[in-house]
């Protein structure tokens, strides 16, 4: 039976005639990329057992299943603005008015929009969504209905419109309630939370 040849690593010892350099200070270990962003998420309370988001506890994170099965519905929102992972953005109002571009999913439904009076996110395709902002009335609460039937109430103390910011991080939804400081226009609220809705260019109606 032949044995594998074991080669020793080449010596990196400096020649004896040379003065060894002073020892380098210890370096912090290199950070290696983790397999999943999920392991890098900062701690946030799970939504389990929580019934309310408010100024004292404004953030909650859904688990993977609640983030991806069924439809997330928001009651009390008058407008929703979204941005997909492809940076497609748009808005929809409870009145039916829309701006920007509606993101249609493979199931032929909007990724974000209104179903009657309820703002809705199609969770099957949640990984296509980067973030969304639900805008409610000033000083008014919103109810976030999860696929398992539980409802989380979101309320704020500020004078401006109550907003719920939804972020999707590695397929997991994080919710944050806040109060907009500038409620004078929809675009001002959008801008305050970093949303800029690109206008849709309609080639067909363009005058030539």
């Amino acid at each position, binding site marked *: 039976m032949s044995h594998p040849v074991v080669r020793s690593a080449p010596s990196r010892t400096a020649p004896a005639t040379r003065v060894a350099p002073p020892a380098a200070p210890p370096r912090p270990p290199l950070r290696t990329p983790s397999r999943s962003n999920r392991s890098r998420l900062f701690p946030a309370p799970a939504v*389990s057992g929580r019934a309310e988001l408010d100024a004292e506890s404004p953030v909650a994170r859904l688990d993977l*299943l609640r983030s991806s*099965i069924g439809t997330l519905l928001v009651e009390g929102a008058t407008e929703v603005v979204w941005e997909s992972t492809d940076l497609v953005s748009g808005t929809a109002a409870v009145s039916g008015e829309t701006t920007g571009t509606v993101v249609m999913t*493979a199931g032929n439904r909007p990724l974000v929009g209104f179903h009657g009076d309820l703002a809705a996110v199609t969770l*099957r395709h949640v990984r296509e969504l980067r973030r969304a902002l639900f805008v409610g009335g000033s000083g008014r609460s919103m109810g976030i209905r999860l696929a398992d039937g539980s409802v989380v109430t979101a309320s704020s103390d500020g004078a401006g419109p109550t907003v719920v910011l939804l972020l999707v991080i590695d397929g997991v939804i994080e919710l944050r309630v806040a109060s907009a400081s500038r409620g004078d226009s929809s675009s001002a609220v959008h801008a305050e939370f970093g949303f800029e809705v690109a206008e849709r260019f309609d080639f067909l109606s363009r005058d030539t």
Partner: protein
Amino acid sequence: MAGLTLEKGNNLSLTKTSPGLTVATVGLGWDPRTTSGEEFDLDASALLVGADGKVRSSADFIFYNQKKSANSSVEHLGDNRTGEGDGDDEQIMIDLKNVEADVTRVVIAVSIDKADERRQNFGQVRAAYCRVVDQDNTEIVRFDLSEDAAPETAMVFAEVYRNGSEWKFKAVGQGYTTGLAGIAADFGVNLG
């Protein structure tokens, strides 16, 4: 080459039928019946189940939003949401040698997204099947789901399970009216 075709409830030793099997790819297919309603959106998933019949944690639930198990031994390979076209609509790869020892079964399920909202069920799905091919893409076994599953919105199609030192395939065909969430809950996937 077509493999053996099983009836509901039957099983087959994958190890004995295909002695060199290391990677089993479970292929799933279906054709939604033509309806005037909304489009169908079917999804395959896998649950890695222990001896108690439950998953060890939610990481053992492999589906469209979590496509790999912790050690990548089970992987959801892709998604054809409408079921259109030839061939498998979705595939789940099982690296049999790397499945953890405390996983005794890999349960293969298919669910209809938003089935209740769209009033869709497996009674409107035809030509559904589940098959296993080896690492050379040779079909080992096949299960054609023939029965009418009108009220059901999710189904466990099959199981790949340990029997001593061998792996076996079982044709299950168990329907659920509670969708993907119902199957997940039934196998111990906890919300929260």
